[in-house]
């Protein structure tokens, strides 16, 4: 009874989760201009998408923000994780470890609003950042991405045997050399998967970006959201399909890397 029931439940769950996405991908190849009417196969919406200046520039901006914020967040997040796992004598380490998970559980609206208030206050106090745009979006994305990278790298670091680093130190390597010779190669999979996670989250973010962006800095999710409000056009389906593809590739690579156990 149990054996027959579970596969059906699993199937139901998968349909529930992936049905909408599959239908979105199928409709992106729809010939008809009406989103809900099937008019045969076509790739014309993809061509139209690539010809759309507004969407392409937004996509380029989102990619740029994604790459930069993920890279900076990986560096900062790794430093944070090192402090939390390795430097046991740092004052306030416990508090910091608890607080780093804050951005993970805080609603995006709150993060966005608080960052906006901070940027406005900073502008009137020290004149930087002047106005809102690429810089403020970058800072915001680095902030929440750092938390995710820290959590990923932290779990890998605490799985690592401390005595491997001690052995290198014992053999005459300076602490800096130990980091680059031993620690870094051993946590590389975690760094890559942390970076991919950060990149995906940055590409995906609408709420926080909307709060902290200004005129001239419109990310892809913002363009999509504003277009959808005027009615769903089929080229959005094409765009969404491409994003689904990119995100799945990122998540699959990241999952594969994390599954590979440290030896």
């Amino acid at each position, binding site marked *: 009874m149990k054996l027959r029931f579970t596969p059906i439940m699993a199937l139901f769950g998968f349909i529930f989760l992936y049905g909408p996405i599959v239908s979105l991908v199928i409709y992106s190849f729809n010939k008809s201009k009406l989103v809900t009417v099937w008019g045969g196969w076509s790739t014309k919406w993809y061509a139209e998408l690539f010809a759309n200046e507004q969407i392409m520039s937004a996509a380029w901006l989102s990619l740029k923000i994604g790459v930069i914020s993920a890279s900076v967040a990986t560096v900062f997040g790794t430093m944070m994780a090192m402090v939390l796992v390795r430097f046991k004598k740092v004052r306030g380490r416990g508090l910091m470890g608890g607080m780093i998970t804050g951005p993970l559980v805080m609603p995006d609206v709150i993060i966005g609003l608080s960052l906006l208030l901070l940027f406005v206050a900073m502008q009137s106090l020290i004149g930087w950042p002047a106005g809102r745009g690429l810089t403020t979006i970058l800072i915001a994305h680095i902030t929440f991405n750092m938390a995710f990278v820290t959590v990923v790298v932290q779990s890998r670091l605490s799985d690592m045997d401390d005595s491997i680093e001690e*052995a290198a130190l*014992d053999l005459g*390597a300076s602490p800096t050399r130990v980091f680059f010779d031993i620690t870094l190669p051993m946590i590389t999979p975690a760094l890559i998967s942390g970076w991919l996670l950060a990149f995906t989250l940055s590409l995906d973010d609408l709420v926080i970006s909307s709060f902290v962006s200004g005129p001239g800095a419109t990310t892809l999710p913002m363009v999509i959201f504003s277009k959808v409000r005027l009615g769903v056009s089929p080229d959005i389906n094409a765009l969404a399909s491409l994003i689904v593809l990119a995100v799945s590739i990122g998540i699959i690579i990241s999952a594969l890397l994390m599954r590979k156990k440290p030896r």
Partner: protein
Amino acid sequence: MAEELSACERRPWVEATEKPFVRIKGITKMFGDLAAVDDVSLDIYRGELFCLLGGSGCGKSTLLRMLAGFETQTSGAIEIDGQDMTGVAANLRPTNMMFQSYALFPHMSVEKNVAYGLLREGVSKGEAMQRTKDMLSLVKLDGFASRKPHQLSGGQQQRVALARSLIKQPKLLLLDEPLGALDKKLREETQFELIRIQEDLGVTFIVVTHDQEEAMTLSTRIGVMDAGGIVQVGEPREIYETPNSKYVADFIGSVNIFDGEVDVAAPDLMRVNSTEGPIICEPMAGLNAKQKLHIAVRPERIQLSRTPIEATNTMQGMVTEVAYMGNLSVYRVQLAGGQCLKVTAANGLHEENPITWDEAVHIGWSAAASTVLVK
């Protein structure tokens, strides 16, 4: 080097003929309110294979980590080869360590693991590779140079770890439970291997272990630790035959302990009243009548027979358990006063009618075999 006598032949600790190589002077390590190592002083000589022996949590590993420079002492000082080590970082000390977990670098080949120390020292690549090759053949791992650690068995990993820690020819090698992860047979083989390498290279070894048999086999001297302090230091024979406390007697080998108080403490007679009756010991100075103490008797020093025994101390009892171990048998003998004694006896070939369960037996031992323990 070849003509030089080894440390167990010179025995510099008997008479102070040479300067100690490692001096640990009143060292204490506090973890919060707890003293992990409590005011330990120890002199170790060049070429020794010194074992720090104790149960888990006795502070032996902490002491070793302080020698390596991974922990900083709360007070006291460590001197290696005349140099004060206070404030010297782990990567600048003349010591190398072999870790209990081996701590091999998982992303490097065996060869790179072993050569790592040399390359950090600034040795040229060609020379480092040659010395690595020699070292790998010393530990019998020729042909494994390009393997990764996870492709090796436990015993091979252990030898890589040993090679890696010896490659820089350290003045002092620290070994943390070096044979702990090996199975019994491999461990016994490796013990003698370790002694051979230690004598070939003339390096001073300090070994931490909880295995008393391992300590007995390996060491020139043993330091028995308990609760952060050194209880007794001595050669294996000394520790076994004349333990200075109940803790040491109990920890090293198996032993029968009688609780009692001094009855007669004269220069020619020493008698202790125990729960099993009077026990005669070798006369010993500094004891008072009525003083409470323990008498330790090793199981192999006790004779066992069906007929009465001619011995200084004799008792009668009943065999409750027999364990046949091959070369010898272990008997548990229940005495009249309620105490249960462990007695071992060598087994003869094709012994007819051996002593067995529920037999009334006589036991006996000499005055010299009863060790008086005041602590």
